[in-house]
């Protein structure tokens, strides 16, 4: 009961800063994810109500963008961009290397080591390709030989 109220409070605090217009929906979802770590169901229904967007459309939106998570994630997160520029500069190899060293398949969580490996369709900074985001920090032109160093730093952080 208490956690529900806590969540409702958090959502309302975020909503209070945003006008009730549908163009602010994505911003709201980003802030929820930043704050809570993922986008819970309650946030989707509340957002639909607040921004006058149908729940189905909100759900369609969060499932379209891979940036949004609908389940609680891990503490550490490695995101490898799969956009065209990154792809031609070796993103698939990069992803495989991360997967091998972390022992997690792309898109999967490792609850034991608290690390998640994600892929996204484009991060929009193609000049830096291939791009990897490690715990929110963008790293450009990452080559496979840098992967062990990144992973070590990440797991060492634990």
């Amino acid at each position: 009961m208490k956690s529900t109220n806590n969540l409702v409070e958090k959502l309302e605090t975020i909503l209070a800063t945003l006008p009730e217009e549908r163009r602010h929906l994505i911003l709201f979802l980003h802030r929820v994810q930043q704050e809570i770590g993922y986008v819970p169901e309650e946030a989707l229904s509340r957002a639909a109500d607040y921004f006058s967007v149908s729940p189905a459309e909100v759900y369609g939106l969060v499932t379209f963008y891979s940036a949004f998570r609908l389940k609680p994630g891990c503490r550490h997160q490695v995101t490898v961009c799969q956009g065209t520029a990154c792809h031609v500069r070796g993103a698939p190899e990069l992803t495989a290397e991360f997967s091998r060293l972390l022992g997690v398949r792309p898109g999967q969580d490792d609850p034991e080591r608290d690390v998640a490996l994600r892929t996204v369709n484009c991060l929009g900074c193609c000049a830096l390709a291939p791009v990897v985001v490690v715990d929110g920090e963008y790293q450009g032109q990452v080559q496979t030989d840098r992967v062990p160093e990144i992973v070590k730093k990440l797991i060492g952080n634990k």
Partner: protein
Amino acid sequence: MPGPAIKLTIDRKTVEARPGMTVLECARSHGLFIPSLCDLEGLPAFAGCRLCLVEIAGRPHRSPACQTLVEDGMEIITSSPQLEALRLAILELILSEHPYFCLLCREKPDCDRLKTTMAKALEPGGCVFCPKDGACQLQRVVEYLKLKQVTFDFEDRGRPLWQSDPFIFHNPNLCLLCGRCVRVCSELRGENVLSFIGRGPETAVGTFLNRSLLESGCSFCGACLDVCPVAAFNERGITAARGRKTYESSFICPLCASGCELKAEYLEDGQLRRIIPGNGCGPTLAAACARGRFGLKEIVDRTRTESFPAVKRDSRQLPVTREEALAAAAGSLTKYRPEEIALVSGGPVPADGLLAFCQFGRRLGTDNLYYFYPEDFQGKVAAFKNQRGIEFPPKIDFKELSRYRTFFLADVDLNSEALAFWLELRKELRRGARLLVLDSGLNRSGQTAEVCLRCLPGRETEALLALLKEVSLRSSRLSFFPGYHRLLDELNLWPEEKLLAVCGLRAGELERAAGILLSSSPALFLFGQRFLRQPRWTENLVALWNLGLRLEADLLPVTGRANELLVPGLCSRFGLRKLTDLEPLEEEIKVGRIKGLYVLGHLPLIKQPELLIVQNPFMTGLAEKADIFIPGATCLENDGLLVDLTGRIKKAGRESNLTGNRKKPTDREIISRLAAALGKNLEIEDLASVLESIPGGEPTGNRCGPTDYLPLGPDFSLSDNPLRPAVGSSQGELEVIVGENLDQYAGLVMAGLSPGFRAIRNPDWLWLNPRDGILRGWQDGQKVVLETPSGNLSLEIKFNSGLRPGSAYINPVLDDSLKLEFFRRGIIKGKVRIKS
């Protein structure tokens, strides 16, 4: 507005077109076929299937015909070897995920004889079982493009079927992702239940959190069934019609004032296959809702036994022929003096039947000619207009709708109460008009409104006054209609914060609503019967009138019931009297002033007179008590007329091709024959002339008569606001809004007969906001008792976030005096007790 025609060439032929047309529309209007799967007349273009690609001179790429607008001098090629090759490749890609065994079967020519394919293909790819067989648009495209083989391996998506919903079945593995269902659900119907979920190859048509349609608040209008080009969306349990002859019969649905034309499709053995929208102008422009297409079918399906005429002898009903029943009715009616006979019409009856009924009553010489309906909406509106000396039109002409830029719905849910109106209004919304809703109860139309003002029950007046105040404050423009300064003085008495506190609205939403009203005018203010079925209905109307006048907007009452616009004419012409309560009639029966009662349709009557004659399509509870029971044709078999909410007389377009013996006499025919048996010939009058004989005549414009601001009067005060106990406190009373239940026909309740319908809309639901449930620990589906001073009602909790927290909503079937009383009061107070 369409400008002058422009000229362009399609396949080297010069053709004319209107600017604003798409290339596809232009080609079709000249009889050219361009294959397409996602385009559908009436839906916004989507350009998803890419089959309609055409070559346009001067453009480097091929363009989708459905999304390309015609231009003067355009040179279009719709068919060339390259285009056909491209289309074939696209079609092959589409078919790589859609079972195509049914499309490319080598045994197809001999199928009728062999029928061997059924076991080979994936379910329901076996073409003889596919309910879309013969009507599948993939079949048509494959035939046109002469596809011989698919080079890709078929990849079964292996997604689970949607099997938990009543009436609607979805097989995502057959889906082409053409988006027709998504577009019809959101753009046309404003239901917003379906959406594209996911991205890339994972994309599927789905709902919020992939819940079932039932849990997603789907209204089961069935529009997705009508638009699906393949068998992905289908009516549950429907079988393939291939090889079997079907019979069709068009009729006008009498269940609300929309007057939708529907088509009943029968199989050879007389079984009703389905009911589909049937006005012949394509699936997107035709209207139908769950009530008409599924509810009526369930009633027909579940009252299998045909009703035969019956006459009571020695307190038992015995079957007789129709002639015998009519003779018995005529014989027993002559036993009484005219003033001892009463005729009552209740329930949906065709307009011509109602007219014959009135004439018959007149010829019998009785004054006791009644029309039963628990709410006299038209009467209230007319009385208000007369009393205040104002005028607004009683009905709408849909052509007028394009004039308005904002629509304001006050306590009227067009989506559920007047579908035809809702679909017209949605067209305007797509053209940029805005929608505002003020409702204290449940309003499906409110989901898509830009601002939905959910005020406290019965506080519509304050909400409207607060809005009026906000509008006057924000706009410096003065209003020159008389009485404005007095109104401002009155408004000054109430601080806005106080008004807001009383009606329970937030300042922000009010500001936005006022902003919309001021920025996009003119507005049309619509109100329904729930707006007037409140203790303070005159104040509601005064506030709405004043707000309308300030914005120079128009006011419009929305009739929820078929033939309601005909009733005033019948009253003035034949002395028909409106009956909102059965008690006076039962009293007359009790004291013996009325001995013979003739009921057309259904009536929740308790007291039985000496002689009871019932004319109704079905053997209902009342019919079982009848001395003489004369069954008429149901609305499906009836080619009866109906007056819709625009005041038009509607008649089913096409003649039915039903065989002769299935035709039953209509209500009009039965009454005429009964009158003839009594030696009175009825000359059925022209309906149109009755419609026009509404007392006072019709206004010619949308605003005539005096244009004065109305004073609220000394009776109005804000002090009577009961500061309601907060929701969650133990002795907290709920304020319950009583809505109307239209899900019944001729005394039969759809939810009572059909478990499927009960799952969609149960008349025993107590609608609550889920937040109230969390606060009080109530569960969805929990059985409860609503305790009120007048009596208790057994209900079941149903959560809906469209309702204001703290308010509740019921829409019971009015089958007893308690529910009738609740209905007339509009808002009741009660406590909820959990049933142990």
